[in-house]
């Protein structure tokens, strides 16, 4: 069982600078050829924050290990993004992940992690909420 004392625990901030090449690599991977992404100041596809987390050094595996959970034993139950100010290539995005809830439901254990991303001016750009299931 995951120690409930971890509720409210925040993890070290991490930073990612948005690169055009990485954006295009991501778009190729998801097979999205919308020409709007080829413009000088392209918008970001909605699920790009996964790149900020994984390449910016959120270290979800380490976060989970710190609370006694192994990555291979976790399922992704829900994912939510709320969007603030628009993101641009060149933005320096900082994320802080917090474990906001740990609970049991239907015989399963859930861990909810909210990661708030801010741009270089301190404005919120993305709020990422992930609900994970820890398998017994």
């Amino acid at each position, binding site marked *: 069982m995951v120690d409930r004392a971890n509720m409210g625990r925040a993890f070290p901030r991490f930073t990612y600078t948005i690169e055009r090449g990485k954006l295009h690599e991501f778009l190729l991977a998801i097979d999205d050829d919308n020409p709007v992404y080829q413009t000088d100041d392209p918008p970001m596809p909605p699920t790009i924050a996964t790149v900020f*987390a994984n390449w910016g050094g959120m270290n979800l595996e380490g976060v989970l290990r710190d609370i006694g959970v192994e990555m291979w034993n976790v*399922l992704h139950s*829900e994912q939510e993004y709320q969007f603030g100010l628009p993101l641009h290539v060149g933005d320096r995005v900082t994320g802080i992940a917090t474990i906001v809830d740990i609970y049991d439901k239907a015989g399963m254990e859930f861990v909810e992690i909210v990661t708030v991303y801010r741009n270089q001016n301190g404005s919120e750009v993305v709020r990422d909420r992930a609900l994970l299931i820890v398998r017994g």
Partner: protein
Amino acid sequence: MTVYFDDITIGDQLPELEKGPVSQTQLVRYSGASGDFNPIHTVPEVAKKVGLDGIIAHGMLIMAFGAQLLTDWAGAGSVRRFKVRFSGMTKPGETIICRAQVTQKLEQNGEALVVGKVTIKGIDDSLKLKGEFTLALPRK
């Protein structure tokens, strides 16, 4: 073509988006692009060791397909909220069908918003995920 708030009626269906078939190569690409290198998405031996038939797609890849359905329709800057609940696994070779419907129109903080639900299924009708979205649309 711009989609205007004024032209939307509750119950409207967004144009369906078909994606795939998802290939093993795509999962390797998505692992590298997203930075999610969990080997259950790329290494068959590891997937089998944890009790799967073989490698499975990243749930986030399927969510990205749903996001494209929204941005193809309303523009990439229009999404204010997108939430999904993952249901079923996707295997290489599967074709994915994304559908969405408008359930609500409202105005908030000076923005004209449409709210709706997304359903993503395999071509065999197996449920992959269900979701909710909020989009900000321009007025005429």
